[in-house]
């Protein structure tokens, strides 16, 4: 790795101060499981890192009304094991349980999981199905960014260079929604997914779909929602045939690359398979 300067702020105000003065050659370092790999492979060589390992005021998992707020420096393992998450957001709990390994989950933070912008990460897939809100701060103030439009490209988000993710908010009572997710790893368990899917369906009392989220990861430059597939489901009962059509639409929106987890063609087809299966599982009894 190239040499770099390392700053170690102790709290949020100090971090924001450093960010306000930072240039294009500065990156934030949280858990390190994402960024340090880029540095070690020499794909990125920032001259300065702002390391958050000493920051103590960006934690916490709290409930306010029906909104769960998770501090950006909470470790993924602690979030997944927290009773609030198990109780109110089981799809997030279950998604987190499959991220990498327990050891990586002890290192990785939610802020990093959201801000790194690698489409192969699992956490944003569930967060997008939950309409999560990214809370970003700079010295100028607080901005709330819905996660659905948050990702622009590989490793690129809507954060400006002086912004820090301080928390993720997940409003809403999801008890009556139906979720289904799949991290499809045909290779081996600790690897990234070939395709990651998270589906959320809401129904009226005649079993017609009133709202849905169909989220895909690992099959394009960003995690994304297939809004065209979601629109197809509106107002209808989820039949085998409808699920198949929606899944095909979603698969057509993917833009995967060949790698050890499959060829682009295989990944596209698996996206179709798993969206269909997740839709049927979520719609099932």
């Amino acid at each position: 790795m190239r040499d770099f300067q390392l700053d170690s702020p102790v709290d949020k105000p100090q971090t924001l101060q450093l960010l306000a003065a930072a240039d294009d050659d500065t990156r934030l370092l949280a858990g390190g499981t994402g960024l340090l790999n880029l540095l070690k492979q020499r794909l990125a060589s920032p001259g300065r890192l702002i390391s958050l390992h000493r920051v103590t005021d960006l934690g916490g998992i709290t409930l306010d009304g029906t909104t769960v707020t998770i501090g950006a420096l909470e470790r993924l393992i602690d979030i997944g094991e927290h009773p609030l998450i198990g109780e109110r957001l089981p799809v997030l709990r279950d998604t987190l349980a499959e991220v990498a390994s327990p050891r990586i989950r002890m290192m990785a933070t939610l802020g990093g999981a959201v801000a790194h912008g690698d489409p192969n990460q699992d956490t944003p897939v569930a967060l997008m199905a939950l309409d999560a809100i990214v809370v970003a701060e700079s010295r100028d103030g607080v901005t709330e960014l819905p996660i659905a439009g948050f990702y622009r490209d590989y490793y690129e988000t809507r954060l400006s260079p002086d912004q820090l993710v301080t928390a993720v908010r997940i409003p809403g009572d999801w008890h009556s929604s139906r979720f289904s997710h799949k991290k499809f790893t045909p290779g081996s368990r600790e690897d990234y997914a070939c395709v990651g899917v998270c589906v959320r369906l809401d129904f009226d009392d005649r079993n017609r779909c009133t709202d849905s989220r169909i989220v895909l990861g690992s099959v394009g430059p960003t995690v994304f929602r297939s809004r065209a597939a979601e629109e197809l489901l509106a107002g209808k009962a989820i039949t085998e045939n409808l699920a198949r059509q929606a899944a095909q639409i979603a698969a057509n929106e993917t833009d995967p690359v060949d790698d050890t987890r499959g060829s682009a063609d295989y990944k596209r087809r698996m996206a179709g398979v798993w969206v269909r299966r997740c839709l049927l599982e979520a719609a099932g009894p």
Partner: protein
Amino acid sequence: MRFDQQYTVEQARDLLWSTLMDVHKVAACMQGVEEMIVVDDDRYEGTLMVKMGPVRLRFSGEVMVVTRDADNWIGVLEANARDPKAGGGFKASLEMRLVELTAMQTELTITLDTTFLGRIGELGRPLIKKKINSMMDEFIAALNEQYVTA
């Protein structure tokens, strides 16, 4: 890694051909490339920047015209570039076929075959693929713009 795409260029085939076979003119349309130097009629050197999030890759190399088959309207370019810091690079072969659609429209078929070399690992490849795809689109857009303004 293969890239196959067909484009419609708003220009007569013979004029498009002479543009594509002229490295000076092609260099003028390559916006994604820094420091373009024309070495001779068949070669130019340049640096391709790939920038996404924290990632910075700088590939330095050369592009050569290896085939000019005017009878069949087929041209082939070869590129060879390395990023010494990342310790890897790529080799690409770009074939262009021109088919006349109308007097003022040509169908340009581009077939690009890229091989990654050295240590460009798994994390780097999707970014390079994305960059090459968008460069091709920008190249065609620049070509069309050149003709519209000419």
